[in-house]
């Protein structure tokens, strides 16, 4: 059960991150963090279908995380769900056309390795 939940969280997190990243690029850079600015941001985001889809995917990941936290330690649950680092790096390069040079690959591998070690019992 534990690993099924991890799989759901990884898939939904990857989908959510890709959709959110694409949606926020269309949105433009956020400068205004005053309450009125955040209200305006909210009003435009509810019409951004990529962000809506991304948030929906992350909501599924959230409920799966709640279930995982009920049956495992925080120090297992959170790191184990981060197996998506390398998958998301590949998808960002292919789908979002990001310029992923060697430093970013090295960083992604180090973080993924670190996360794998964190998840070890």
């Amino acid at each position, binding site marked *: 059960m534990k690993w099924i939940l991890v799989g759901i969280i990884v898939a939904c997190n990857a989908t959510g*991150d*890709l959709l*959110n*990243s694409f949606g*926020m*690029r*269309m*949105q*433009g*850079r*956020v*400068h205004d*963090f005053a309450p009125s600015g*955040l209200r305006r*941001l909210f009003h435009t*985001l509810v019409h951004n279908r990529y*962000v809506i889809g991304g*948030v929906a995917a992350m909501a599924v990941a*959230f*409920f799966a*995380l*709640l*279930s995982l*936290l*009920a*049956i495992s*330690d*925080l*120090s297992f*649950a*959170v*790191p184990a769900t*981060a197996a998506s*680092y390398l998958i*998301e*790096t590949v998808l*960002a*390069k292919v789908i*979002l*056309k*990001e*310029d*992923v*040079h060697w*430093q*970013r690959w*090295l*960083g*992604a*591998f*180090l*973080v993924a*390795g*670190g*996360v794998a*070690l*964190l*998840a*070890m*019992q």
Partner: protein
Amino acid sequence: MNWYIRGLALAVVFFNASGNYFLSLGMHHLGAMVFVSPASYITAIFHPAVLIGVALLICWLIAQLSLLSWADLTFVLPITALAYVCSALLGAFSLHEHVSLSRWCGIALIAGGVAVVSRTRAATGHPMYRHPGNPQ
């Protein structure tokens, strides 16, 4: 790295680690009851610690979306992985979970990955970053 990106990255790490900490606190208190029925998820949401965790994770979502408007996904993901380190440390020192030698090595690797990626340019030359009113 400009101040917007630094500030937003710090906010993402803080809200993520603290939100997960409060969720864990609440869910450990409730135990495995969330599997009983869908309604039990609603009950879980109204536990005070879970409520605080949800509020912090909403702040995390706003900070994460704002950061993604400034930087590449492949930049944001490793940088915000510091939240995993904070979660592990919170688990160790506050929830008294066991942190083995391999987990400490994992924390060191993540810190190394963050250091490497933080030296790269936050937003690469994707055309979507170049439209009018949204300069590089």
